[in-house]
């Protein structure tokens, strides 16, 4: 190093090329970020414009009729919309207690730490199993195994509309169960994160006045984590509504409406997976109408999830 200080810093003024690079990099990153906006708006406009013709032709009647007839050009998606809602809501009802229970086991000290960590890892790996593999498993393992149980339920409770048909294989019930498996990891891991974020002083306050583990959990810890958990449940609901492959493979893809959970049914995404590739004419537009309904459903659930997390977390 020379001791001569002057003349060493020739670049006191940044060169034009350096300044250009700086600005270009910023503009590039803005452009990349804009892709999200363009995609989102693009998808929305695309689905809406594709559905436009059908929305005009069938209006709201499309939502409440079940006829799906490409030959006579009559379309109504009630069957698929009903299937989407019944499978996702039922699966949420089953998965919420299971998922929250598991999250409690992972975060509170009911079991030794090693076991809890293993359970946590297993839940995350469950999320990594692709839905098409779960579908395959549902077809060849789960449904045949459960069918005798379904038949027994039908035998004894057949008078109840939800159990009124004889289980023959694919149907709404096995599709719901596979959805339960698919959304459990979401509910569990989001609930676990929310429970972990409950501040230690609050736990100490509860245990410090002599609360038992479960009175602390049920009265203090769970209420404090409720915003995150509720948000997670809504995200899981959105996922269940949009889930395609496993459901398509096991729901039976029936075009006829039936109250029974043992009967084959349909969902919007299953219908799209089955028909979109080969559809033409007004069927395309009718399918896009269904896709539009699915978009609205998942969009509102997701927005509600974000809103709830923000809104409720202010309280604590």
């Amino acid at each position, binding site marked *: 190093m020379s001791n001569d200080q002057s003349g060493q810093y020739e670049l006191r003024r940044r060169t034009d090329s350096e300044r250009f690079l700086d600005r270009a990099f910023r503009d590039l990153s803005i452009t990349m970020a804009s892709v999200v906006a363009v995609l989102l708006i693009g998808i929305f406009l695309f689905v809406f414009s594709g559905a436009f013709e059908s929305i005009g032709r069938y209006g709201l009647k499309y939502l409440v009729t079940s006829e799906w007839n490409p030959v006579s050009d009559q379309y109504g998606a009630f069957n698929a919309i009903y299937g989407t809602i019944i499978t996702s809501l039922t699966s949420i009802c089953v998965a919420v207690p299971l998922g929250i229970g598991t999250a409690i086991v992972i975060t509170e000290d009911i079991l030794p*730490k090693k076991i809890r960590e293993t359970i946590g890892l297993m839940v995350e790996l469950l999320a990594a199993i692709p839905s098409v593999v779960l579908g395959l498993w549902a077809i060849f393992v789960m449904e045949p195994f459960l069918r005798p149980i379904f038949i027994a339920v039908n035998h004894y409770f057949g008078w109840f509309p939800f159990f009124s048909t004889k289980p023959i294989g694919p149907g709404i019930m096995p599709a719901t169960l596979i959805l339960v498996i698919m959304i459990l990891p979401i509910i569990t891991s989001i609930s676990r994160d929310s429970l972990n974020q409950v501040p230690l002083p609050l736990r100490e*306050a*509860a*245990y*410090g006045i002599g609360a*038992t583990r479960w009175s602390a959990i049920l009265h203090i810890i769970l209420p*404090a984590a409720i915003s995150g958990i509720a948000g997670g449940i809504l995200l899981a609901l959105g996922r269940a509504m949009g889930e395609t492959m496993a459901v398509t493979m096991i729901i039976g893809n029936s075009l006829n409406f039936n109250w029974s959970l043992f009967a084959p049914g349909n969902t919007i995404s299953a219908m799209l997976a089955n028909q979109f590739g080969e559809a033409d004419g007004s069927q395309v537009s009718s399918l896009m109408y269904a896709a539009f309904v699915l978009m609205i459903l998942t969009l509102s659930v997701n927005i509600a999830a974000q809103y709830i997390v923000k809104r409720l977390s202010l309280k604590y």
Partner: protein
Amino acid sequence: MNTSAPIENLISKEKIAIAFENVSISYGGNEAIKNLYLNFPKGKVTALIGPSGCGKSTVLRAINRMNDLIPDCKIKGRIFYEGSDLYDPNIDPVEVRRRIGMVFQQPNPFPKSIYENIAFGARINGYSGNMDKLVEKSLKKAAVWDECKDKLNKSGCSLSGGQQQRLCIARTIAIRPDIILMDEPCSALDPISTLKIEETIHELKNNYTIIIVTHNMQQAYRISDYTAFFNAENVDDGEGGKVGYLAEFNETETIFGSPKQKITKDYISGKFG
């Protein structure tokens, strides 16, 4: 400065509420307090003083088994309460905490109404009397009734810091413990709230055994009957770790008037810590 021998017990005239017998506590292999022998007198206020990190909170939290919440906290030795070793495997920590209440450094009211903050603890402790009366009595004892009586349904978190801390004291009183542990209850508070809490402690003195950690020498002098001075010394683990020990324990008058150890005198006169 060696702590391996039990410090001579000067309080034989008092009944004993809690007795530490050669207790060492560590967090994941790092010792925080070692070879502690200490008898807390019953029905008195005992102050724990000492530089930060010397294990005062650790000692306090060991008394009502609050350290159970910290996964890697290990305790050796025995702590006696009414003839029972608190860390005997047959002991139910929930029962322990119902008899030994705790007020924490940061006020931590439940995110519930003021009324519920008191009623919740009483209810889970099986209180079956008149809840309204209990809430009023506890809040009065904690000297926060006047500020709360018109907004019992408001959230406990809406109170000021000092009021929150007195609410936490009221919550603890409501479960009628034998012993109240307080971990620097005034450190997050302004001087006026601090004075109010000290008044509260004076009130409580007659009915409870109180063990209080404080950083404030005047406060220790004002409110306590006995004072335990803890200090920390270096351990040769090559990592500059420190371990806490009991340096001196005596009547507060003696500790502040004529301490036996030079280090106690230095600490009290503000030479370090």
